[in-house]
């Protein structure tokens, strides 16, 4: 079959390919450095939604949250979380999820309270994200939950209390994708009565199509 020279050549190639193509053993390449506990702690900011794993020490009251919110959040979200302009509303919408125009807010839609801490902590306030103390983030979380009537005004948010807050929409998520949920068939000829082909809506003339997005834009409007 193979000459011994050919065989050893093939084995050599296979060994070389194996050495570079797969890292079956940890540390195979040995690049980089081991992350120290201090380095990990600086970046390990996630708090898990359903059980609060990773929530940091600290605590915050609704009252303190009122102050922090006015200072850091109200400009965009409104004093009581009602939202300014197109910035998100944080309150309201309870019972609207089946409506024609549902209102998705922390109170009406979010399934898990620790997610609120996690999101404020990582992404807010928008001009200076991840600059608030854990205590202030807990306080904001308490305030927003209170605005939605989900916790009483004496509520203190911390790593123990937040996972216990039952959000109204918690049990209405299906976490397994049911798609494909359509079963169209690729018909080729006479697939419909031509008389039944009717235009139900058109974008013509409704004035919603942007015409220009800046001085360089030569897009011609229709």
């Amino acid at each position, binding site marked *: 079959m193979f000459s011994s020279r050919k065989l050893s050549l093939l084995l050599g190639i296979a060994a070389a390919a194996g050495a*570079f193509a*797969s*890292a079956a053993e*940890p*540390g*195979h*390449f040995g*690049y*980089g450095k*081991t*992350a120290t506990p201090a*380095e*990990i702690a600086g*970046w*390990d*900011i*996630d708090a*898990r*939604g*359903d059980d609060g794993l990773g929530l940091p020490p600290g605590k915050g009251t609704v009252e303190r949250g009122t102050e922090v919110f006015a200072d850091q959040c109200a400009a965009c979200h409104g004093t009581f979380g009602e939202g300014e302009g*197109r*910035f998100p509303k944080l309150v309201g919408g309870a019972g609207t*999820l089946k409506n024609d125009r*549902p209102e998705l807010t922390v109170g009406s*839609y*979010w*399934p898990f309270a620790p*997610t609120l801490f996690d*999101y404020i902590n*990582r*992404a807010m306030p*928008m001009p200076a*994200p*991840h600059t608030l103390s854990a205590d202030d983030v807990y306080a904001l979380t308490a305030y927003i939950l209170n605005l939605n009537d989900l916790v009483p005004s004496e509520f203190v948010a911390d790593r123990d209390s937040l996972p216990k807050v039952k959000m109204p929409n918690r049990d209405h*998520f*299906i*976490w397994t*994708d049911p*798609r*494909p949920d*359509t079963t*169209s068939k*690729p018909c*080729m*000829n006479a697939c*419909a*009565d*031509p008389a039944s*082909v009717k*235009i*139900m809506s*058109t*974008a*013509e003339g409704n004035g919603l*199509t*942007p015409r220009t*997005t800046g001085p*360089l*834009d*030569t897009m011609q409007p229709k």
Partner: protein
Amino acid sequence: MSVLPKPAGVSAQQLGRRSFLGLGAALTGGLALGLKPGNAAEPVPAFPPADPPWSQALGPGVVDRPYGRPADFEAGVIRRNVPWLTAGTQSSISFSPLQDLHGIITPNGLFFERHHAGRPDIDPDQHRLMIHGLVERPLILTMKDIVRFPQVTRIHFIECPANGGMEWRASQINSLQFNHGMISCAEWTGVRLSTLLEEVGIKKEAKWVLVEGADGAHMNRSLPLDKCLDDCLVVYAQNGEALRPEQGYPLRLVVPGWEGNVNIKWLRRIKLGDKPWYSREETSKYTDLMPDGTSRGFTWLIDAKSVITFPCPEKPLAGPSLYEIRGLAWTGNGKVKRVDVSTDGGVNWQTARLHEPVLSKALTKFTLPWQWDGQPALLQSRVIDETGYVQPTIADLRKQRGSNSVYHNNSIQTWQVKPDGSVFDVQLA
């Protein structure tokens, strides 16, 4: 584009050296003059029998533009946003100008954008990727470390699942760019995520992976470990050059075939865990609200979709003639198997030609010759992917999902062609 006449009093060389802004003004002036025959400054034709001025001049030399750029005449081929859609531009989207693109690869400067806290400008020497959690040995990698790992190159699309999201209720926007431009496709180069995870050693309890960006949003999503080990890539290059800042420079995740939001840009942290994190971006956003009030979560897959890119509202027809209908198709399930085109609103269909290469989880180009007789027409395309899945109509989708689910509208687009050749975005019964 037809050859533009030379504006009076401006030499070709002067024109070529003008700034975009100055050029725009010059062109507008030139075109306006062109519309007024008899004007003293009427431009001289630059086509046969005339020898044009650029053929009788010496052009700028090499490295006149050390990093090249498109012709000044292509200044209108740009990303655009919908100002009324979002509160500001920092947490917003821009759309690729599909009407002006001709292939399956999106030029780097035209790749659609989705930022949640604006675009960070990251010093690659300061960038780190940390991998920790349920691993044998937590690791910090520099960009120089990452580039040393075995390289892979793949062509994949990325589509925001909100592409077409403005059209769930009805036709709203008369535009290919705004209704479909949140998809782009590039050749990505980097290292398999599985290589990095095997390098740190995966503990057997690990089932999920948190991926997080270095932007101000610290954007984070949860991914099942199986997908990470299957085909995910940690990439530093896009179409052969370093990633653009808008696409995650210096490092991003590519999750082939899955919704854009999980393709974390500016990737800085990967953490292995035993459960998903249920972050804001996978609970309050990127979930699909159904008519019964329940919501679907973790709907990552991009279902098969196609769209005709010519003709379209931005590129109308110029009178009855033989045309080539052109379009793009894609599927997160793998390869496009077939694309059919209808010119009568879905009554009769013809199979279009697919253009090579037909790659898995990449844009695929299709064309079909069409003799337009000047009569009203309703153009549609319908893709069938290698799993046999058939692109649905908007009516089919609404039957299943109502019209409040925002994401994953992969329905058939209908373009209405009027006798004057103009094209409008419509929806059929």
